[in-house]
């Protein structure tokens, strides 16, 4: 049954910084929380539900981080959700906020993400590395899997099975750069060509430097509220109508590297929303790497398996030009990938599109139905996938 009309996203805010030299992680959380509440026309005192993940300061002290940030922000809660599913968390949190509102556990849900890996010069590979006390550690760590080479194996297999080319993957970056030129806050605003991508250094086979997302600071926040509150505010009515979550695990060594969790999270979201991929007018797709977008386009049903390369080529994802406008803020590839967790900005740009508040150069005309998809973990390994479908009433 559709979630339509059971809750509304009334606040969405993306921190303008991309390098937070003079802001702490806690300050960034406060910046985005207050930004989203101002956007909604609400205040801290209205918040009775809070959703956060492992990016909150103090997380490494088990259980303490969420309480610490709740106190720092000054929240008085009835409901707390600390689902940690990395980059997919914030898409996942929207679904959890909807469920909590439907269940009467809260009426104003705040979701925040913040981090400063760029200012701290954190190596993403180190941050995403295998954890020593995980069961797979001793069987994988000797082989030095890092973020880049595990994604590289996905791209390599896609090329092997479907004849996908580096040129086709490069078009995903080209589209992102076309969008980012209109975003004054984007970390990389320069338009790039397919040749620029192919001439950038190979990081791992077959991914070039420009196939990889940025490392940026900042964050974002969302406010999801009960329908009664939404109608009392002056914001456009954007309602989640379907959501899905799935974990792709390696199943004892029996898995298809090209089948991400998006296959199941997408199917669940479409079923709940009662819509088809062809109904979607705008999509925010996780773009940690170009290959991430390609696999999600296929797994979410925007094209058939193996056709992703042709789908994205020749500007297929450029707003106003292509088949499906994707990541019109410039995405993680050009705009922002705060705290190495992309899910939050995916929802924010979808909300902008549905409100008609995207940059005029990339705004989808009369955008009423959008999809946001986040993924956490590694596309070529175990990961979680979260799909959210939003409608403008």
């Amino acid at each position, binding site marked *: 049954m559709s979630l339509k009309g059971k809750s509304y996203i009334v606040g969405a805010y993306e921190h303008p910084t991309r390098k937070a030299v003079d802001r702490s992680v806690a300050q960034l959380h406060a910046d985005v929380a207050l930004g989203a509440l101002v956007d909604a026309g609400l205040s801290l005192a209205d918040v009775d539900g809070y959703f956060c993940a492992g990016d909150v300061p103090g997380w490494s002290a088990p259980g303490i981080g969420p309480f610490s940030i709740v106190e720092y922000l000054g929240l008085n809660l009835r409901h707390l959700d600390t689902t940690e599913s990395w980059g997919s968390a914030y898409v996942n949190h929207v679904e959890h906020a909807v469920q909590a509102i439907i269940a009467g556990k809260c009426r104003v849900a705040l979701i925040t993400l913040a981090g400063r890996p760029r200012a701290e010069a954190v190596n993403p590979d180190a941050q995403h590395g295998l954890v020593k006390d995980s*069961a*797979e550690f*001793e*069987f*994988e*760590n*000797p*082989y*030095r*899997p*890092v973020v*880049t*080479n*595990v994604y*590289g*194996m*996905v*791209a*390599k*297999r896609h090329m*092997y099975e479907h004849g996908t080319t580096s040129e086709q993957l490069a078009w995903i970056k080209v589209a992102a750069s076309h969008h980012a030129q209109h975003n004054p806050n984007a970390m990389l605003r320069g338009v790039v060509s397919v040749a620029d991508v192919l001439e950038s*250094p*190979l*990081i*791992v*086979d*077959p991914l070039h430097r420009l196939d990889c997302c940025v490392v940026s600071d900042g964050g974002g926040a969302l406010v999801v509220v009960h329908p009664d509150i939404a109608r009392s505010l002056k914001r456009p009515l954007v309602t989640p109508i379907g959501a899905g979550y799935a974990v792709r695990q*390696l*199943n*004892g*060594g*029996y*898995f298809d*590297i090209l089948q991400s969790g998006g296959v199941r999270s997408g199917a669940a979201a479409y079923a709940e929303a009662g819509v088809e991929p062809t109904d979607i007018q705008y999509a925010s797709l996780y773009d940690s790497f170009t290959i991430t977008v390609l696999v999600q386009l296929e797994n979410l049903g925007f094209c058939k398996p193996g056709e992703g390369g042709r789908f994205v080529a020749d500007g297929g994802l450029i707003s106003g030009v292509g088949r499906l406008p994707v990541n019109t803020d410039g995405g993680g590839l050009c705009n922002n990938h705060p705290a190495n967790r992309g899910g939050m900005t995916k929802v924010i740009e979808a909300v902008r599109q549905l409100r008609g508040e995207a940059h005029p150069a990339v705004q989808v005309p009369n955008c009423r139905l959008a999809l946001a998809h986040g993924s956490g973990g590694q596309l*070529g390994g175990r990961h979680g996938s979260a799909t959210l479908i939003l409608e403008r009433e």
Partner: protein
Amino acid sequence: MNEIREVSGINDTQTYWNAAALGTLLLKRCIGTGKVFHYPREHSPFTGGRTEWVEASGLGVIYSCSLSYRAKPNYCIAYIKLDEGPIMLSNVQHEDLTQIAIGKRVRVVFRPGIDGRPTPFFMLAD
């Protein structure tokens, strides 16, 4: 299998490394389904039931691979589809890493790993 020292309890995966030290790749088999799986664990991830160790042939085919150019020396991570069925993460070693490709046959070789202990890697089987 006689010479492989089997370990049970909290350090049960040590059996795998004891075998590796003797040049044998061990896999786990789900007794209920007969399906061989990797990485090893005490229970079957398919049924929750009992498992047993089996000796692998050490042969397989490259399911996917990726060469890391920034690491010095370069290395090639790979998923190996073992002849027994499961896909296993490893490295393929070859003097010319550009010869490594999906679909090529590989066989296991034991060399010192990150911590110095004999560890299963793979090389092109020709």
